[in-house]
């Protein structure tokens, strides 16, 4: 999957490490949502503990993905396009996730219903960000060109 873009550098798919960071956050946020749903139906507190950890884990990976996406924006020069959409989606995911993490620091049913709504929103934005992250091409490194 090589396409010629300006500067003569080849475009390539997402960096493997970036891919791992990005791919990891979605199942964690999705797990958080499922745990919140389980807690809202059962009142079983352990589900909300699981949700809090899954969301915290999702935030770690989403945070590093966001940093990477931010750096990529500058490397992309004038041709940002989908990269910018990806970055904005990740930014929204991170912001909502941060609020959600604080909401999940409340005790017992105090996380409801805000936590469930936010978990659903974060899962959706994380899915969209992942979609755009994996479907957009990036500018290849100069090193690859010289080889």
């Amino acid at each position, binding site marked *: 999957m090589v396409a010629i873009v300006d500067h003569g550098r080849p475009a390539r798919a997402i960096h493997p490490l970036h891919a791992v960071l990005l791919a990891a956050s979605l199942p964690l946020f999705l797990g958080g949502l499922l745990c919140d749903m389980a807690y809202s139906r059962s009142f079983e507190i352990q589900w909300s*503990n699981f949700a809090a950890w899954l969301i915290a884990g999702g935030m770690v990976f989403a945070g590093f993905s966001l940093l990477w996406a931010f750096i990529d924006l500058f490397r992309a020069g004038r041709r940002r396009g989908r990269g910018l959409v990806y970055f904005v989606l990740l930014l929204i995911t991170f912001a909502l996730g941060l609020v959600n993490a604080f909401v999940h620091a409340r005790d*017992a049913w105090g996380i409801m219903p805000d936590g469930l709504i936010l978990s659903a929103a974060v899962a959706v934005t994380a899915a969209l960000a992942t979609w755009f992250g994996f479907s957009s091409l990036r500018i290849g490194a100069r090193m690859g060109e010289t080889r």
Partner: protein
Amino acid sequence: MKRSSLLAAAGIVVLLAACDDNPSPPVYGANPPLPEQQYGLLPSMKIANPASWGDHKPTVPEGFTVTAIATDLGIPRQTLVLPNGDILVAEGRGGSAPPLRPKDFIAGIIKAKGTTPVPSGNRITLLRDADGDGRYEERTVFADHLNAPYGLAFVNGQIYVANQDALVRFPYREGQTRAEGPPEKVTDLPSYINHHWTKSLAASTDGRFLYVGIGSNSNITERGMPAEADRAMVWEIDAQTGAHRPYATGLRNPTALAVQPGTGTLWAVVNERDELGPNLVPDYLTSVREGGFYGWPYSYWGQNVDPRAQPQKPEMVAAAIKPDYSLGSHVAALGVAFSSPVMGERFAEGVFVGEHGSWNRSVPSGYKVIFVPFRDGAPSGSPVEVVTGFMGEDGKTYGRPVGVTVDPKGALIVADDLSNTVWRVAVTDRSPSAQAPADMGSTTTDGNGSSN
């Protein structure tokens, strides 16, 4: 640039969460105003900033002097005055509640900054003033290798100690400075998790029963309802057999108990739930009715439902008793003692209350010892500040009061678990004119509507 605006946005979130709606001073009395519940993004925290007393001392009213009668203790909590005037000090730190959520790790680190770093004493120290000059020159370890001892009581020749996991007793001969051996166990106490580990203690006047206050295993059931079995209640324990039954329930954290002289009624100070805002929920002083239910976790101050406890139990909410007297939200009352006329005319009838002080309020509350006057056996009127100056104007915290005990010789004994000191506030002048301490009337609910 986007990154920095994100950081700015996160900063604003933090700032917003830190801004309370102007917390009012603690509100006292039988009918405190109860504002709307607030669910912030972050609990507003203001942790005590510990500093050494140096040459400072707590401030006491005119007609009293204050002296440190023991320092460098291993976290003094509650004290007991024996018939010969010797003072026992229970020292220790308990609790083994594991952090469950990301929040618990972070909050644990932050809250530890406001407490003493010294290790738990796990012992009872005896202080003696043989010549009666007010200086306690003799100090011995009465008993050690205890498990976070807290509540103390002396009745029928026995010293009862409420460890965090068991009620035990030592036989006592007058003048003894050291227990003769390991204690005898009266009964085990609920100790699973021990989120609120302190076991407060009082004995009935005839010594037949002991009352032990057992705190809840969570703020508001966030460790699950099964963890709350035998929690948030006062047990009545038969001194002979160790048989026990719940005497009163729904008391979130009954941190100190006292039996009223004359009537024999049991009284408690109770620490209420957090994270509903700076002015909820008031900690309180109340007489404890046999068989009574006081609301936790389903409701507070009578029928005010706490939606965080699910599933709700409307029949329990309906049965909840309204406590007698609000001490103000988050003051963390940890000591209570009935006064007597030896404390001077102004303090002749009522209770002293030791307030450890808040951690989750932007304007700290507590950090002092107050006196709640009684009339006809019940709280009446505004509290009076007795021992203050634990938190300085500069925000530095020199001490945090815990247990209070009235010495029949005419003094108030105050345990301070931040500076690891026991203070003795002695009466020097009993005439009423000499005792004109600051009245806290402006913050009572009697007859004024200033509230928020």
